[in-house]
């Protein structure tokens, strides 16, 4: 008995329509639903980016005004 099964034997009978070169897990190549450019609406991504933006602003304000300017005895001349 060979460890490598013959390719011919691994073709499953229950999945009939796999074309040559099909990658398992790949998206179907037929368009299921077509939307316009601005109809694509990734609100979650927008919220995530806005959150990052807010963190950046808060960290900058804290770093400059509290940690730097609030550090006492700043060079003024």
């Amino acid at each position, binding site marked *: 008995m060979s460890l490598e099964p013959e390719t011919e034997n691994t073709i499953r009978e229950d999945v009939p329509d796999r074309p040559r070169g099909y990658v398992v897990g790949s998206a179907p190549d037929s368009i299921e639903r077509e939307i316009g*450019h601005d109809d694509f609406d*990734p609100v979650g991504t927008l919220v995530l980016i806005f959150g990052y933006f807010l963190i950046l602003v808060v960290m*900058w304000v804290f770093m400059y005004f509290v940690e*730097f300017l609030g*550090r*006492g005895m*700043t*060079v*003024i001349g």
Partner: protein
Amino acid sequence: MEIHAYEKFWLGAALLLIVGFIATVSYGAIGAGVEMIDDDGGTVDPQNLDQHPKFSDPGVYKSGPNEYDVYVIAKQFLFQPGTSEPIRVPANSTVTFHVTSADVIHGFEVVGTNANTMAIPGQISTFTVEVDGPQEYGLLCNEYCGSAHHAMEGTMKVVPEDEFNASATAGGA
């Protein structure tokens, strides 16, 4: 090219952030008056600091009403004054430091504050700070200057005005 509305928002926000960064730094320079330390302090002969009018006897000098000059020599591995005796300045005054080095490059940092400069042989680093209430600060060298660099530290004491004046009339400053 068509740009998505969200992408336009993000591009605008990113540009706004850059404008904000520049605006805060501009505010620091104009509003808060933060200055950079440059070469305005001039030069000095590091071999002959004992012939300099002030560095020959480094310490605190009164330069005006409530204004003081502090001359500090950094050398391996001490600040003079600072290490063997603390730098004493009065509270709520304007203090101008003049820092130079007698040998190699050192750092002069009042720990926990933005008063911080390099001490370069031949160059006088001059910077002015506003001193608040009485407090004791540490001084340290933050440029590697030799085998005992880690031990190069000192003290700066901000003392109440009356206490400073009392000690000044008693002879020490």
